[in-house]
């Protein structure tokens, strides 16, 4: 029983990470119906920037050289985390918005295939950028958050790291919900998602709204990339594809285009991964997630929370 609870706890924590990435997919799909294949690789570049930052300020060693510097003081660690949590989201947001303008906007009027294929192309280029940046090996991300158990005395483990994930991801999601619901830009986004033509007629600059959506989705991926690095302590240029597919599955599971759905889907995927590796074996847990993706698409393509839409002829 305790073991089961432990895996549920792990699932919830990793699930909220997937949810953060899934939000970027779901928001973009909600407006322009594009499966942004490059989103996972954007997440990877975000964690690379964070790693570059801690190397530059001397908290972590350059990969493959000199022995690791002494563990940073608490103050330095907090400062480094704060810096990363500002720099990575800004970088990812800007990059995503630029790519939207340069690559997706020109093909927006073309058949849908054009945008998806372009996104695959962007994903390749991002991956290659990651390869140039730190090379093909997996890298150590400095462990700036202590791994001490907060639930000492019980059999469960809930460490500072787990706490950090929750403390960063939940407010980010709450903020996003408020933003989309109450701000002018948020309302414009929802309007554009519902009916781009009508939104344009109402004086909404739809292209600007789409860019903003890409920027916000990118910023969330940036936050997720820092949290991911601090939590798993390993990053590499191929992490984008794998985590991107998980997050995408989460978005589809919750009902693509649906923001609360993405959060719910992320948590479900986290739980499936944790419990799957416990009960079905580690080697099958990933296949299990893809099987869920297929089953959902076959039997309830609108997801758990998605509304049924009629197909346009």
């Amino acid at each position, binding site marked *: 029983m305790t073991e089961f609870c432990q895996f549920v706890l792990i699932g919830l924590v990793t699930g909220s990470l997937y949810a953060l990435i899934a939000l970027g997919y779901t928001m973009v799909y909600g407006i322009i119906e594009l499966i942004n294949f490059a989103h996972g690789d954007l997440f990877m570049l975000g964690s690379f920037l964070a790693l570059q930052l801690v190397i530059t300020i001397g908290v972590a060693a350059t990969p493959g050289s000199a022995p690791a510097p002494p563990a940073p003081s608490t103050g330095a660690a907090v400062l480094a985390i704060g810096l990363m949590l500002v720099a990575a989201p800004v970088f990812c947001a800007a990059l995503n918005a630029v790519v939207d303008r340069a690559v997706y906007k020109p*093909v927006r009027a073309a058949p849908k295939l054009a945008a998806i294929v*372009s996104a695959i192309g962007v994903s390749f*280029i991002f991956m*290659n950028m990651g390869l140039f940046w730190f090379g093909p090996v997996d890298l150590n991300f400095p462990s700036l958050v202590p791994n001490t158990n907060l639930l000492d005395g019980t059999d469960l483990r809930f460490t500072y790291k787990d706490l950090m994930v929750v403390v960063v991801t939940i407010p980010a999601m709450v903020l996003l919900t408020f933003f989309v619901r109450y701000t002018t830009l948020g309302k414009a986004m929802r309007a554009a998602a519902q009916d781009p033509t009508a939104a344009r007629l109402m004086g909404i600059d739809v292209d600007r709204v789409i860019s903003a959506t890409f920027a916000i989705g990118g910023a969330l991926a940036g936050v997720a990339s820092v949290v991911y690095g601090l939590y798993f302590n390993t990053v590499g240029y191929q992490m984008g594809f794998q985590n991107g597919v998980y997050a995408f599955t989460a978005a589809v599971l919750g009902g693509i285009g649906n923001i609360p759905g993405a959060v719910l889907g992320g948590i479900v995927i986290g739980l499936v991964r944790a419990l799957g590796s416990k009960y079905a074996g580690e080697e099958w847990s990933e*296949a299990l997630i*893809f099987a869920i993706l297929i089953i959902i*698409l076959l039997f309830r393509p609108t997801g758990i929370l998605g509304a049924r839409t009629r197909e346009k*002829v």
Partner: protein
Amino acid sequence: MTPRGVLGHWPWAALVVFCAVPFIPGTQAAIYGQQFLPLFIYAVLALGLNAVVGYTGLFHLGIAAFFGIGAYVTGILTVPQFPFQQSFLVAVIFSALAAAAVGVLTTAPTLRLRGDYLALVTMGFGLIAVFVIRNLENITAGTKGLNPVSPHLLPGIDDPNLGALRVRPGWGATWRAYPYFYYLSLVVLVLTYLFLGWVERSRLGRAWVALREDELAAACMGLSPARLKLSAIALGAGLAGLAGALYAVSQRTTAGPQAYDFNRSMTAICCVILGGLGNRPGVLLGVFLLIGYDQVLTPILDNEFQKDWYQQLFPEHMRGKQYLKVSGWRLVIFGAALIIMMRFRPEGLLPEARRKLELEAGDGDGEIR
């Protein structure tokens, strides 16, 4: 004939060149000539994928799974640790049939899906296949792959090399099974190409195109979308399985599961899109350009760029880095090719006339669903 009409027959000119390559003397040709084999194998794979994506308009992102099934069926039927010990001609037939059967079985439940949802389901299928190959260690030998795959052409023929060719220095020495297998793959490619040309003009091929253009209208005219989609996937998966069988024999091993991952599916898709969806010469051109760059040109240039004259152009700390090698730029080239094609020439380098019209109509009709 007009000059343009003559140029239209370039695949046959390429065939003459490929037939002649083994007779070129010199070690360079011998070393790099082997690299043409992946070209032929990829061409069969891409032509198969083209039947699914190009003719019928089903955006399939998991073609590598069928390629893998073909390779592993060939492996299982030929390697010594299993009792079958069949020759290539038997294995290749079973490979194609097995891949086609799996294609039909896995596609049947997805028939009502369209567009991106179909793309995702096929991607999920491709990803699962990799895990199945990795995890069924008793059958597939896990990450090691099955080997040695027998190159025997027919039962009872132990070493079917074309003796005369092996006398030439270079060829036989670099790879024992090379001469016969080189021509065998080329023959398979030519037969596939001709067969697909016949299919294209047949009732079935025209029905596929009708389905791609407008599924509703095609159904109203009495065509059965389900049967047409399944026949397209059967043909595409079967050809992918055939290519997989060739691949396993050419490598003498099934390699590991990572040889059949999303990357290979995407490479095949890139070739088809770059060359021209639905157009056989276009697909061939896409394969020759992308795979030619990747498998033939890259090794030659990388080898050249190892040398001092090139490395000394750069400061010490940059030498030996990924971005100084041509192979380091692989994904950038593929990605940029996709983006640029989609932006400026979405119908591909050598478009099919009808597909071009569909895209120029610009009202969303004829898009891949």
